[in-house]
């Protein structure tokens, strides 16, 4: 690949996704982390994260998403939140909420945390335990949600949905209301990393999908501004692909636990890209000039039908990681798009998997289970 030299990218990023750690008490089979997880010894130290936040703020980042793994497993999370607040970054804690005491949460609120996003794997205790691979998880999550509200922090409930919990979608809506959540995120599984390895175990049928669309529509009409509901459809069944991360290197920077910087948390699946590390390069250079971030900016890399497509500035050809994972070509049109010559084949695959009995989960673990 001989990409021509390019002008540095001048648009600033909006958000920084800080994957503080890959450690997590849960083992969800659709985890967005890579199959090869980073161990604790290789995690960035506090001072490096603080410097990254400073560089991010100077670059124009406005929102900081504190994620993982489970970010509360970092004992320096308060310091990181406080640094974000001092830099006027909007901080969002993305947590499983199973091991966080009210006192800890209070310390995070005092440090200036702006918002909490809590994952709930299922509204049914048994289902929640089975999907997250953690016993007694739902009761802990509910107690955590109540503590969030007692402290006056805004709360988003994050419901990742798939064939095992979709039939209880109405209950997710009710739970969000009962807990006094401000937002509910209903996100169909996106099939990367662990989720791709578990696709046959998770893929919903077309009728399950259609029903979820109807449930969300009815809830939005009924609840109005009482609850904001965001909805992410599974793109195998979509008409057009999603503009992944709002386009490659256009809105989001991901910093992995070991300091590597990626345009998307799945970008490591694309061969030939070297992801610079914050311990070695300034964030500004990484964002504006590094070959990995420049790789799929603009439209020159596109193939047909993307290159001449009227939607190329809307969805940027869809997701590069998905094109790589499903077609072995990161420049191909995302097969989630109906204009892709591979769309019918991929959709038939998803429908066949959804129609068959679900295989057992391959749980997300730090130690890979031998196949």
């Amino acid at each position, binding site marked *: 690949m001989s990409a021509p030299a390019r002008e540095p990218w001048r648009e600033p990023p909006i958000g920084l996704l800080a994957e503080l750690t890959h450690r997590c008490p849960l083992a969800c089979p659709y985890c967005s982390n890579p199959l090869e997880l980073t161990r604790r010894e290789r995690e960035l130290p506090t001072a490096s994260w603080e410097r990254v936040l400073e560089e991010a703020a100077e670059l*124009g980042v*406005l929102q900081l998403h504190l994620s993982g793994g489970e970010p509360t497993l970092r004992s320096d999370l308060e310091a990181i939140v406080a640094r974000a607040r001092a830099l006027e970054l909007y901080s969002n804690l993305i947590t499983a909420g199973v091991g966080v005491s009210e006192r800890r949460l209070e310390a995070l609120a005092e440090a200036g945390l*702006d918002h909490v996003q809590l994952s709930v794997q299922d509204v049914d205790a048994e289902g929640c335990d089975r999907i997250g691979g953690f016993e007694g998880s739902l009761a802990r999550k509910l107690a955590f949600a109540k503590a969030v509200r007692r402290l*006056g*922090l805004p709360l988003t409930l994050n419901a990742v949905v798939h064939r095992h919990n979709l039939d209880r979608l109405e209950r997710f809506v009710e739970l969000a209301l009962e807990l006094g959540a401000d*937002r509910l995120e209903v996100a169909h599984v996106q099939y990367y990393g662990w989720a791709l390895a578990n696709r046959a175990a998770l893929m919903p049928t077309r009728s399950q999908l259609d029903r979820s669309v109807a449930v969300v529509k009815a809830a939005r009409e009924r609840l109005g501004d009482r609850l*904001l509901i965001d909805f992410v459809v599974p793109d195998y069944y979509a008409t057009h692909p999603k503009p992944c991360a709002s386009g490659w290197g256009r809105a989001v920077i991901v910093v992995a636990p070991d300091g590597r910087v990626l345009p998307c948390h799945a970008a490591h699946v694309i061969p030939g890209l070297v992801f610079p590390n914050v311990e070695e390069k300034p964030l500004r250079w990484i964002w504006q000039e590094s070959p990995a971030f420049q790789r799929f900016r603009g439209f020159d890399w596109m193939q047909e039908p993307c290159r001449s497509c009227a939607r190329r500035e809307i969805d940027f050809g869809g997701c590069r990681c998905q094109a790589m994972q499903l077609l072995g070509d990161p420049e191909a049109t995302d097969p989630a798009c109906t204009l892709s010559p591979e769309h019918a084949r991929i959709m038939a695959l998803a429908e066949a998997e959804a129609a068959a009995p679900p295989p057992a989960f391959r749980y997300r673990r730090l130690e890979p289970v031998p196949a």
Partner: protein
Amino acid sequence: MSFAPEDRLVVARGVRLRFDPVRNCNVLLAPERVLFPCPTSVEILGRLAEPRAFRELVEGLAAEFDAPSEEIARDVEDLLADLLAQRIVRVERRPL
């Protein structure tokens, strides 16, 4: 959408308005959202950092911009309805 004079309005929790020196404009930060508010929204949101009655908001704007209250009320109502629908602003229906 119309507001009663004593409806108390306030910026919703989790919403932060700030100036961004990199983009040289005001930004509205909310859960999973970044908005770039128009100057009128900035003026309104600045006044709703603490709960304030709709009547009081309108009167304040009328005084500031030297315009009739009825005109201001009409102008801000649509904008407020939009901010409400997006949960940027919330309304306390009963006066305190």
